[in-house]
């Protein structure tokens, strides 16, 4: 099955574009130490707030650090947080959605009402509460975003399972005495995976934005570790004299989220074309 998906992926322009940019970003993240002209943590108080030049491509920040290098290193933060947070939410959301949809009855009721309650809280409120308990750090940010964004996915998966449950091939598997565990993992999950993958890919963009927002507020990644969000924090104070502190990290966020969105949209077509019923 994977070979078929791979072939389709290669023909889909959106997915290819997204994959290309994401690969680029991953390479930047991995090769940041070699691509950065300067140490991102190195302060140079004599060169504070300098505009972009051949020496400092993106200028310098309020402590004289090279913004270009900081943006490059910031890629690591964004990608790590984005992808791992989404992985956490996929794990939690899929498990709960699968169980809820398949078991039905009392379990379904309890799980879905809990989801409803959690969804009543504005996400930012949940996140702030969590941050209040835990100290802000990259790991905590990841976990917090992951644990506050699985609810929508669980509903999505539950919906898929509910509609799949009644399909003939699931009935046939049941009739053949296939154990429930195998039905869930081998029969249901592969059929529900398409919306999960698409939702997850699009969710990475959301997670990156949330991390940026948290870091911007000072609740996420703490300086001196560079994150696009915390570069923006500095930028907001100097917006009228140092536009480069806002524009470049902003562009980085834009390009990254766009890349994941393109891939997500492309995957939607790759995974669920009209060829299959």
């Amino acid at each position: 099955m994977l070979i078929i998906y791979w072939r389709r992926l290669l023909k889909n322009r959106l997915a290819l574009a997204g994959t290309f940019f994401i690969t680029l970003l991953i390479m930047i993240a991995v090769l940041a130490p070699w691509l950065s002209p300067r140490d991102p943590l190195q302060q140079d108080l004599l060169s504070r707030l300098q505009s972009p030049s051949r020496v400092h491509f993106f200028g310098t920040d309020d402590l004289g650090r090279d913004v270009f290098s900081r943006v490059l290193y910031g890629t690591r933060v964004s990608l790590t947080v984005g992808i791992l947070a989404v992985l956490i939410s996929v794990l939690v959301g899929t498990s709960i959605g699968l169980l809820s949809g398949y078991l039905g009855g009392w379990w379904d009721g309890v799980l879905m009402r809990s989801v409803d309650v959690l969804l009543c809280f504005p996400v930012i409120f949940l996140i702030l509460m969590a941050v209040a308990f835990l100290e802000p750090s990259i790991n905590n940010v990841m976990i917090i975003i992951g644990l506050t964004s699985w609810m929508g996915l669980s509903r999505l998966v539950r919906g898929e399972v509910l509609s799949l449950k009644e399909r003939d091939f699931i009935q046939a598997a049941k009739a053949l005495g296939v154990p429930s565990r195998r039905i869930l993992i081998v029969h249901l999950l592969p059929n529900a995976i398409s919306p999960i993958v698409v939702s997850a890919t699009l969710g990475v963009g959301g997670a990156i934005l949330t991390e940026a927002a948290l870091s911007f507020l000072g609740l996420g990644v703490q300086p001196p570790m560079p994150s696009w969000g915390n570069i923006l924090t500095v930028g907001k104070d100097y917006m009228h004299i140092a536009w480069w502190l806002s524009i470049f990290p902003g562009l980085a966020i834009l390009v990254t989220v766009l890349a994941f969105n393109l891939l997500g949209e492309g995957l939607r077509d790759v995974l669920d074309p009209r060829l299959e019923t």
Partner: protein
Amino acid sequence: MTPLIEASGLTKRYRTGGVFGRQRILAALIKVSLTLQEGESLGLVGESGSGKTTLGKIIAGLLDPDEGMLTLAGRSSTTLKRLDRARFAQMIFQDPATSLNPKLSVGTQIGEAVRLTGNRIEEVEVWMDRVGLNREMCTAYPHQLSGGQKQRANIARAIAARPRVAIADEPVSSLDLSIQAQILRLLSDLKRSLGISYLVISHDLGVVAALCERMIVLKDGIVQEEGETSNILKNPQHPYTQKLLSSIPRLRTGS
């Protein structure tokens, strides 16, 4: 001789209308009784809403009746465990397009039936031969197969579990005419070579005529007529059966 299947007074009701609509209780089956002897095939004929599919699913163990008794090979259906039920009767589902898991290969799905019997997985290929599928199709996915091939895989999956009864729900309705004839021939051959008993559910009297020695006519959940197929077709007693027969368009050879 103990009949393979003995059903008496089977009744099933469905409730329609949600919380806000008027709730209505529809009877899908009303006190339906039937017997199936070992080695024979019984046809369940009816139009939409007749309850024939509901009846088939109850016998297959996919639905529970609200009232009535079902005895399978001498044992009450309520005492049978899920696996015993599975080994007794399997269902060949209606639409080959949706009755196979689109994400699993054909071989894997037939393999699950083989697993039920405890036999070795190599048997999958034997079954594929028996239903006329190329062994290479083992790793193929349903969407790579034609309608007729999908139906063959469907059949293989049901009978590879070696059930005593195979319940065929509209086995050829969604197939082209030329393929219908092939599949009916296949089912007929399998009946003879495997000694399996069929319960054939169909709106098409022709299908039942090709496969079943006895048949039951259902309308709105109630049995209208039952008996030997050849007798009923030649000499239908009940007005509904007569109407069914006369509604079938016939080839006119005159000009």
